C-alpha cells in the first residue's frame, strides 16, 4: 500500500514538474502559456494513437514517445503564430488552444478512426516500459526507463537554462526583449524555439500522465492548470518549481490513491480530489503578492517600439 502511494506521488511529481517547466520556458521567453492543458491533451492523444500503431514493447517505446514529443511541439505553432506573428491576445489564444485541443480529441475519440472504437474512452494496458521492478506494490515500481529519462531531461533543462547562451537569451527575451534585439538576436526566433520546447515538454507530460492513468477519455483532469499554479507559486524559478511540484505531486498522489487508505478515505474521495486545487489556491493567495513575473510577459514584441 505504501509502495503504491509512494510510486504515485513520485510519478505525479515528475509529471507536474515537466508540465510546470513547459510553462516556465514559455513565460520566461515572454509568452503567457495557458495552453499547457491543451498541449498535454494533444500529447496524450498522439501517444495513445502511437501505442495503437507501434504496439510498443521494449525499446519501441522510445520512438513512440519521440513522435509524441515532436508532434506536440509542432502543434505549438497554432499558439506561437497568434502570439508572435499576429501579436494578438495571448491569454485568449491559450484558451482557444485548450478548447480546440479538447474538441479535436473528443471528436477523434468518439469517431471510429485511427484505431479508436468510438466509445469515447481508450484504456491503455499496463506494460513494462523497460522497468526494473515489475512488482506494482514495491516502492520502487516507478523506477523505469521512462521516468529516469524524464528526470534526466529535467536536469538537462535546468543546466541549459542556467549555464548556456541560449538559456540567457530565453530569460532576456522575457525580461527585456529590446536589449536582446539590440545585441542582434532575433526575439521572434527565440520565442518560437521556446514555445517549441514548451510544447515538447507538455507532450511528454501528457504521455506520462496517460501512461500512469491507463485511461484516456479526452482530457488530462486539469493537470495543466495545477502546473500553472505551481509555476506562479515557484516564482518562475526552477528549484522552487521543483519543490512545489513535489509538494503537489504528493498531494495529488495521495488523493489519487486515497481509496486505499480505509473506508473514510474511500467515502470522501471527492474531498481529497478537491484538496490539491484548494491548496493551490491558498498557496497562490500567500505567494501572489510577492510574485515576480518576467517583466515582458504577455506583451507582444514590436520592433518599432524600441
Amino acid at each position: 500500500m505504501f509502495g503504491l502511494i509512494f510510486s504515485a506521488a513520485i510519478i505525479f511529481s515528475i509529471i507536474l514538474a515537466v508540465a510546470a517547466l513547459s510553462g516556465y520556458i514559455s513565460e520566461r521567453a515572454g509568452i503567457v502559456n495557458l495552453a499547457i492543458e491543451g498541449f498535454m491533451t494533444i500529447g496524450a492523444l498522439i501517444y495513445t494513437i502511437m501505442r495503437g500503431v507501434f504496439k510498443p514493447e521494449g525499446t519501441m517505446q522510445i520512438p513512440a514517445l519521440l513522435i509524441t514529443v515532436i508532434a506536440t511541439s509542432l502543434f505549438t505553432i497554432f499558439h506561437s503564430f497568434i502570439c508572435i506573428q499576429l501579436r494578438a491576445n495571448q491569454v485568449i489564444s491559450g484558451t482557444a488552444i485548450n478548447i480546440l485541443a479538447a474538441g479535436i480529441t473528443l471528436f477523434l475519440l468518439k469517431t471510429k478512426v485511427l484505431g479508436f472504437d468510438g466509445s469515447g474512452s481508450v484504456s491503455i494496458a499496463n506494460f513494462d516500459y523497460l522497468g526494473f521492478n515489475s512488482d506494482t506494490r514495491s516502492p520502487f515500481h516507478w523506477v523505469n526507463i521512462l521516468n529516469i529519462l524524464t528526470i534526466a531531461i529535467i536536469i538537462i533543462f535546468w543546466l541549459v537554462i542556467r549555464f548556456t547562451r541560449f538559456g540567457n537569451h530565453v530569460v532576456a527575451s522575457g525580461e527585456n526583449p529590446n536589449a536582446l534585439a539590440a545585441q542582434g538576436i532575433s526575439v521572434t526566433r527565440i520565442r518560437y524555439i521556446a514555445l517549441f520546447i514548451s510544447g515538447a515538454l507538455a507532450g511528454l507530460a501528457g504521455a506520462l500522465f496517460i501512461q500512469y492513468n491507463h485511461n484516456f477519455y479526452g482530457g488530462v483532469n486539469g493537470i495543466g492548470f495545477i502546473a500553472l499554479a505551481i509555476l506562479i507559486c515557484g516564482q518562475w524559478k526552477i528549484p522552487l518549481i521543483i519543490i512545489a511540484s513535489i509538494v503537489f505531486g504528493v498531494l495529488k498522489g495521495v488523493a489519487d490513491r486515497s481509496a486505499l487508505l480505509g473506508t473514510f478515505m474511500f467515502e470522501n474521495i471527492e474531498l481529497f480530489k478537491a484538496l490539491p486545487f484548494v491548496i493551490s489556491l491558498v498557496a497562490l493567495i500567500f505567494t501572489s503578492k510577492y510574485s515576480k513575473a518576467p517583466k515582458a510577459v504577455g506583451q507582444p514584441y514590436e520592433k518599432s517600439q524600441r
Partner: protein
Amino acid sequence: MDKIKFRLIENTPVVVFAKSWIQSNQTRSSASKIKASIMSLVIGFIVSIIFIAISSGANGFEAFTDVFTLAFNPVMLQKLLATTAIMVMAAAANAIAFKTGLFNIGVSGQVFASGALSLLLLNTAFKSAGLAGNILLFFISMIFGGVVAGFAGFLKARFNVHEVVSTILLNWGLFYLAKWFLLKFKSAYNQAQGQSVFTTNNFKNTELDYHSSGTILIIIAVLASVLLAFMFWKTTWGFKLKATGLSPDAVEYAGINKRRQIVFAMATSGIVSGIVAWMSYFNPSTSGEIMSLSSDTLPTIGFDGIAISLVAWNSFIGIIPISFIFSALSVAKTRFQMYDLSDQVPKLIVGLVMYFAALSIVFVRFRILQMIYSYIKMLRSDHYKLMHDEYKTNISLAKQKSDAYKITNAPVINKIKADLKKELSELKLKLNANDETRINHEQYTKQVAHLRKKSEDKINAIESHNESFHHLINLKESNRTNVSLLLENIRDSFDRKLFLYAQVVKTDEYNKIKKKYESALHAKKNGKKDIDISLARKTFISEFNSLLEHSKKQGGA
C-alpha cells in the same frame, strides 16, 4: 431623372442622419467586426468539414445540412430556444468580464456549484414548493454564482491572484466539493441508487412545462442581454466597468476605485452564470439536463460561452445570433452519428471557430472587395496591357535565344558527360584490379569526387555564358515586382482619391458650384424652359474636377 430626385431627398433629415450614421467611425468599426465574426464562423465550418473529411472520410457538408434541417424542425423548437437562451447567458457572463478587462474562465464551475446547491435545496427545503420554489431557486442560484465569482474578483483585487488561474482552480475545486456534497446527501433525492442526478422531476406539476419553458427562457435571456447592453451603453455603472477595462491606470486618476470595479464585474459575471445554472438544470426543455457525476468532466457550457463571446466581439446583442447557430448544432448533434461521426462534432467546431476568432485580427485588416476591385482595375489599365505585351515579346525572344544556345552547346556538354562516365568506369576497374595499378577504397572515393566536381565545373562554365537564360529569369522577376508595384499604386491612388474627394466636398468652392447647379435644377422645375440641364451638369462636373485637380496640386505642394 432618378439622380435629380435623389439629390432632392438627399438633404432631408432622415437621409442626412442615415448617411452620417453609415459613414461614422463607429459604424465602420462595427461593420468590420461583423465581417470578422462572419469570416471566423465560415472559416471554422469549412476547416471542420475538411478536418472531418480527412480524418474519417465522411461528407461533412451533407451532415451539417441534415443537422440544421433537423434542428429547425418544429418538434425541436422549445429545446432549441432553451439551449439558445442558456448559451446567450453563458456568453453574456463572459462578455461582462471581457469588457472589464478580466477573464472569467470559471463560468463552468460557477454553473456546476450553484446548480448543485440549488439542487440540494430543491430536494430538501423546497420539495413541495412548486413554482414559487422555482422562482426562489432562480435568485439563490444567482446569489451563489455571484458570491463564487466575486470571491475570485476579491482575490484579484486584494491579493493580486490572477483571475484566470484562480477561476480555473475554483472550477475544479468547486466541482469536486459539489460532487462530494451531492454524493454525501444522496439519500435526500429519489434516485438514491444511481450516480446521475435528475433534477426536473419536481417541476412537472408547475406551469413551466415542456411546451412553453423554452419560450420563457429565451425571453428572459434576450431581456437580460438587452438590459446589460443598455447598462454598458448608457449608465455610469457600466461606464466605470468599461473604463476599467480600457485603461486601468486612467480610471484611478479619474477617482474610480479600480479594485471595487474588479469585484463588481466578477460578481455580475457570476450572477449571470447563476442564471445559466438555473436555466440548464431546472427546466424541462433541456430534457431533464443530467448533472453527470459518473465521470470527472466539467460542464462545457462555460467554455462554449467564451467562444461565443469572442466571436461576437463581446457584444451583448451579437451573442444572440451566434448562440442560435451553435445551439442549433448542439440540439441536433445526435444526427451526426448517422454519418458515422461522433456527436462531439459541435465541440470540434466550437474549438475551431474560437481559434479563428482569436486570430480574427487578420480578418479585420482583410479588405476583400478592395483587393478584387484593384486587381480588376489593374488588369484593365493601359499601363498593365503595355507592360504585359512588352513582357510577352521579351520573354519569347529570350526563350528562343536560350534554347538556341543550349542546342549549339549540347554536343559539348554531352561529350563532357560521356568522358566522365568513361573515366569512372576506368576507376572502377582499377579498384578491382590485381596488379600494381590497384587502389584502395578511400582513394577511389576521393578520385570519384574529384572527377565529378571537375566535369560539373566545366558544365557550369559553359552554362554561365548562357546570358539569355539569366536574362529570362531576370525578366520574370522584374515583371513580378512591376505588377505588385502597379497594384500597390492603384490601391494608393484609390485611397488618395477618396481622401481628396472628402476634402473637396468640405470646401466653400464646392458649396458654391453645387448651389449654382441646384438653382438651375430648381429653375427648370419651376417651369423655365430655356435652361439646359445637361449643360449645367456638364459645367458642374468639369468645375468639380478642376477643384479636385487644384486640391491635388495643393496637396502635392
